[in-house]
């Protein structure tokens, strides 16, 4: 059975993205144990994929007006709205040798904790390649990963009660994506656990379900811990990048 350190965390998007990157580097030099982080964005924030054009994927005008920060990730994938009161993010940092070699299978393997969490709550969730967690064909979870020096860091979302109207206003879908999926709006494509189950799922429910889900999916025992001083220092040092205009507008 794997032993995985669990951190339950909260902070702004600069901190979260920097901490995920710091943990990736520290695990790559074997300075830290396998780590699962379950975290909340405060304030609500947007993250978008490393290869995305910010203006093509985020309604920056509205985000600025609402005071919602938007941050480029080091991982690929699409733009995400992290609702403080309706979404929990996880990141898992583990050796590449422990996951399937095939990239899509590795997404599934590491995302399975989220699928199990949704099932614990009573939703008939499943994983759909390339990187989606879905309930009845609608997305409630997305996943992205990066690999460095034999280590993988995958992070992903768990929408338990996201405000989907705000999400649809803040994220800009490409017309090709809407056309390919045969939908008119992002709202037709997403669902939250609370919507599906027709009852309010709380943050605590979601966090507990994620803990159980990952322990089951990875056949792991989780032990809770706080970030170390080294991790906080490194994350703090890296966070300048995520706050910089150069990084955000790397692909304008």
């Amino acid at each position, binding site marked *: 059975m794997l032993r995985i350190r669990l951190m339950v965390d909260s902070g702004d998007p600069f901190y979260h993205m920097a901490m995920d990157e710091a943990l990736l580097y520290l695990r790559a030099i074997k300075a830290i144990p396998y780590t699962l982080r379950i975290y909340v964005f405060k304030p609500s924030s947007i993250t978008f994929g490393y290869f995305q054009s910010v203006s093509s994927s985020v309604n920056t005008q509205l985000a600025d007006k609402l005071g919602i920060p938007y941050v480029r990730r080091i991982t690929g994938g699409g733009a995400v709205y992290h609702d403080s009161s309706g979404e929990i993010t996880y990141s898992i940092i583990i050796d590449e040798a422990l996951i399937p070699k095939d990239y899509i299978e590795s997404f599934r393997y590491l995302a399975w904790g989220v699928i199990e969490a949704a099932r614990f709550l009573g939703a008939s969730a499943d994983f759909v390649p*390339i990187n989606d967690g879905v309930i009845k064909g609608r997305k409630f979870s997305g996943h992205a990963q990066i690999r460095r020096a034999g280590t993988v860091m995958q992070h992903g979302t768990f929408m338990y009660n996201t405000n989907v109207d705000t999400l649809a206003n803040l994220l800009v879908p490409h017309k090709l*994506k809407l056309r390919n999926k045969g939908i008119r709006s992002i709202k037709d494509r997403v669902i939250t656990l609370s919507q599906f189950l027709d009852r309010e799922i709380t943050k605590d429910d979601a966090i507990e379900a994620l803990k159980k889900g990952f322990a089951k999916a990875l056949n792991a025992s989780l032990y809770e811990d706080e970030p170390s001083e080294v991790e906080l220092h490194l994350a703090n040092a890296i966070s300048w990048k995520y706050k910089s205009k150069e990084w955000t507008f790397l692909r304008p």
Partner: protein
Amino acid sequence: MRIVKSYKEKGGKLVEIYLTIDRDCIIREFQITGDFFAYPPEKVDYLKNLLIDQYIRDVLFMTKLEELISNITWVGVSASTLLKIISEILREGASSCVKK
């Protein structure tokens, strides 16, 4: 002149390529954007930097381009598809560019 090409395979990810050429047929902007995954990601930036500031006709048959694209692991779009789109956009740029 700016050319934009968008592509999405069924079940795949979105790829959007931007090419800007100046009046002297020099590539000023080349961006591969989208929600795909690439391992390692920085090789995509290397690819971009390889093309920036080059005379567009000089890059049309660049063997290094093909080599670089096939040495990246793409998830959500295939290397062959990507090479096809990049070749198309470069050819389109070259054919519409007359050096002053």
